[in-house]
């Protein structure tokens, strides 16, 4: 399927969901996201718009690498210390745990799991992504500090796989967030994941893993794509 077809398919999907929303006649907003009025202690009434007041929402900026040898050293360090945030969206998540077993032991490559996106620099998206999950993926991705790397694990993640025509599954992850390493297969075995890490290391060491800056550069495009598919967009534009 060509990229054009893909796009038309996406648009078709979007139109369908838009129609659904229109037909139902209401826009769904979660109660906690509605603009609300609260009474301040001094009796005055203040308006709170959660999306603007509670989130920074500022656009991301490109963050320039440092110069020369320093950046090289840092890239080496980044490559040798990959802290992974696993995002188990589907069947792929079952392939990640074997990596910590003696058989595969990813630790010896400097790869380790980390529980919070703030402290991770590699993001594994394992398996198909539903529209609903995509929001979480975007938020998590945006919360990771740069430089950050995305590994798309499995066919479903990369091109929709067997769900290529599902109404609720997105079928091209890199329309929504930039992906550094594609690990194809259905499902790829842990060895493939390790190979993916090796590939990532190569990219980092070569200074080619600057997809975070690419995201910032093409922010509008990405955001438009995201908003096209996520109808009940109830997040700030950028999640810090």
């Amino acid at each position, binding site marked *: 399927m060509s990229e054009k077809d893909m796009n038309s398919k996406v648009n078709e999907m979007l139109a369908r969901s838009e129609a659904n929303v229109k037909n139902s006649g209401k826009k769904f907003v979660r109660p*906690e996201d509605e603009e609300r009025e609260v009474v301040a202690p001094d009796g005055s009434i203040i308006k709170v718009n*959660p999306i603007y007041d509670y989130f920074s929402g500022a656009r991301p900026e490109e963050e320039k690498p440092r110069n020369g040898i320093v950046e090289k050293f840092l890239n080496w360090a980044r490559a040798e210390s990959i802290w992974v945030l696993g*995002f188990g969206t589907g069947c792929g998540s079952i392939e990640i745990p074997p990596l910590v077993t003696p058989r595969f032991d990813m630790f010896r490559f400097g790869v380790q799991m980390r529980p919070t996106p703030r402290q991770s620099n590699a993001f594994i998206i394992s398996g198909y992504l539903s529209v609903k999950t995509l929001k979480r993926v975007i938020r998590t991705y945006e919360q990771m500090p740069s430089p950050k790397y995305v590994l798309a694990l499995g066919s479903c993640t990369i091109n929709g796989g067997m769900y290529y025509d599902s109404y609720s599954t997105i079928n091209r992850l890199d329309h929504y967030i930039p992906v550094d390493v594609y690990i194809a297969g259905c499902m790829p075995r842990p060895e493939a994941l390790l190979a993916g890490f090796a590939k990532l290391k190569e990219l980092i060491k070569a200074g080619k893993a600057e997809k975070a800056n690419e995201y910032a550069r093409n922010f509008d495009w990405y955001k438009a794509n995201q908003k096209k598919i996520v109808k009940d967009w109830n997040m700030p534009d950028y999640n810090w």
Partner: protein
Amino acid sequence: MISPIHILTIGLGGAFALGFVPKKAKDAAAVIMLAAIALMGVLTGSWLIGLINGDSAQQVFTAGFKPPFSINLLMGLNEGALTTAVNFIGLLGGIYLYKYLKEAGNHAIMVFLIFIMGLNVVIMTRDIFNLFVFLEIVSIATAGLVILTETGKAVQAGFKYMLATGVISGVLLIGIIFAYYYSGTLNIDGLTQAHIGALRGGSVALLMIMVSILLELKTFPANGWGLDVYEGANAGIGAMLSAATATGMYYVLYKLLVMAGPEWNYWIALIGAVSFIGSNVLALKQRSAQRLLGYSSIGQIGLLMIILGFKDILGDNTPYVAFGILFSHYFAKAGLFWLAGIVKQSDIANWAVIRKKPYFLFLMGTFIFALIGFPPFPSFFAKWELVMELVNTGNLPWVVAILFGSMMEAVYLFRWFGYAIKGENENIEDFKIEWNKILPVGIVAIALYVTGYFTAQHTEAGAAINWIPLFFVAAIFILDFLPVFVKNTIAIIGMALYFYNIYPDLDNMRLVFEAIFMIGGILTLIAGYAYKGKRTGFYPVALLMYAGLTAIIEAQTTLQFFFGWELMTAGSYFLIIRGKRSMPHGLSYMLFSVGGAYALLIGLGMAFAGQDSLGMEIINTISYLPYWAYGLLIVGFLTKTAALGLHIWLPGAHGEAESDVSPMVSAILLKAGVFGIVLTLIGMGGESNSYPWLPYALGWLGAITAFSGNLMAVFQEDAKRLLAYSSIGQLGYIVLGMAMMTHLGWLGGFSYVVNHFLYKAVLFLTIGAVVLRVKTHNMYEMGGLIKRMPLAFIAVMIGIIALSGVPPLSGFAGKWLFYNAILEKGWYLQGAIMFFSGGIAFMYLWRLIHTVFLGQLKDNHRNVKEISIWFLIPIYLLLAGIMVYSVKPQWVLQPLGDMIAQWFPDGQLTWDGGTAFTKYGHWAGTAVAVTIIVAFLVVLALLLISTRKAHKVKQFDITYSGERPERPETTHVAYNVFEGLYKAMWIATIPLVETWWNKVTDFLHDTADIVRRIYNGNGQTYIIHIVLFIIVTYFVIIGG
């Protein structure tokens, strides 16, 4: 001088002549009555003045014969004073009752006039049968006046009254006739000579006379009829009964007691004590204002009877003591009854309505404080004298009985007062002002202050009292209509000038405390500028507290000390009860304070015993039961430091107080207790202390207090309560330090005193100011305020670092000294408990700062402003103090050490520049501070260098498992934060002490509720009570 017999002429002649006044001319009749009473008053008053100026007492003979053959009256000093008092109150009562009397007609006016006249004669007469006749006049007149405002209840009460007094006077008559039979005379002086009590039958006759007078005084428990009258009659009549009649009857008892001989003294005192305690305990369950006052009146008469019983022991002081109590009772009770008539609310809970007219509240407060015996009222001085003398003569059980009774009285009176100050008053109909009713109330209130002042002048120690602060308070009270700004300025200037004047006269130790009181006072007053409007009543009471505090410091005599102590208690009570939900806490504060003050009183009495001096130095050389004396003093002072067991009042009182009051009562007021403990411990001999067990017990108490105070603070949800519990814990440290009785312990204790003042003032001021902004005390309703109030956050942060004792701030100095002291003293387990408490303290401090300032900002606080500048000024001044103390601890600790060395010369710190040495180690405050600050700055510089420009994010920009927070409330970890700790340590949080006190109060209330059912409202039962009372007294006194 006109003969006193013309009281009869005026009174009776007036009454008879009123028959000529036409029935329509009611005003004329009432005016004639008032004029007649005034004339009697002038007559007796002129006699009183003459007698005071040295005239001799006048005997009045009738019928041209000398006694004992005819009836004679006596006008001596006592009679002069009492008849003047009766006429005075009669006049005021007449003015109060003006409208009622007018309405009831000329006959009622006659009755009232005769009533007053009768009382005059009762007081003056020296013939026992004549006494009987005029007693009958008084009681019949009373029976008539009871139904002045005719209600069903009044009629019932009147009938019971008639029945009871009829039987009582019959008994009296039998007694009189047999007394005549045995002695052949009816003259009281003649009967005194005759000693009929020595005869078998004569003793019974005497008993009947005495018992019937006691019954007329409505002695507990045969007094149901009296209570019914107090409740059922018009309040104005209640006032007359309570003030005038009781005064007259009391003097009758005095006269007859002289006649009965000294062996009756004991019995009178005993019956008085039973009456005093019984009546006051039963009053605990009372909800009806007038009946409550009735119980109180009976209690007061009981107290007066005790005094009478001890007249031989009190000697020349008897009139002083008796008049002191009597006049306080007389004015205050009349005033309260009149107020009851003005307010017209039966249920004491509805007295909240009085608050709608604040000056009435002031009047009520005056009367209640006068009744309990607070300065500057006469009862204070009288009670002091009484206790001093009784302890001096070894009558300790009596003192305990008296103070227990007073305590019970305080319970119900202050509960009542609490309702008046704080009760719900929205739905209660406001009362009307009638000038003829208010005038007498105002006059008696003024009279109370004036008599108080003159009572004080009467004794040497009392005359030495410094009244200037009190006059200043009075001036501020008068200026209360001015706006806050002006009053605040006046108050600050006044305090500053006073401090400037006073400080050269003080020794170092006193200067430390005076500085805390006065400078602290000024600083906390600055915060008062933040308030708008008038803030009615705040300045007088705040300054009253400071007046008391400074009086404690300046006291040269124990009387002055106690005077100041009670003033301070009164002032702080009013300050505390100003808080929104402070009613129960104000009450418990007052009760613990009163209880503590009584412990102090006994302790000071023991110090007085055998030393015959009132100078403060007597507590250094207590010889009479010294263990008990020092113990009682310490217990008294511990109520103010809120040691475990006596701490019930503190959390609520401090927690609910106003924002700038909390620091006053926490950072400043508690130090008064510490000052007292310091004085006591110095008194115990400093290093050569010969009462080792007291400090030992005190030390454990301090340690356990520190532990439980801090532990309780951890589980509070209310920021101010948290700080309040923290104060309990901190005071525990101080007490432990002082109890060690070593140089280092005291140095640690004193450094804590200074420190606790600084940081607790900062914390309470800041949290109070925050509360003013966010309008809630609950920490879980706050959060994230650092964004809105960065300056407040900094203040709290420095405050908690100082409190927790983390180096390099000042708290560490105290901790370091403490552990050195503990090692030196060998109190290791206490030390370990203290350390553990420190760890716990860290928890609540973190909780405080986290839940208030950190975490998630709430919706409704998005626009709150930084705390008021007027709070920031004192806060930052205090912070400057903390910083100076932290960086240069030697500036504080060296002078303190020199001061302490006069009592504890051994084991001093040695200083080498900024380094302090003990034998266990050394500590360089400045060096440590500099090291830490430098390291901090270096690390900060490194961080700044190695990070890029940080992007400022907002509060929901947190990792949330791919989701996002929904509401600040659900994201803020603030409620029940230390659940895990609670699961582990709940056993230590069981409020055993509180339960114990609750049990005690429940027991007392239940007892009162059961026992008071003897007053079943049936007139016959009351007669049975009377007869039983007679029989029991007979069997007890004469013994079958």
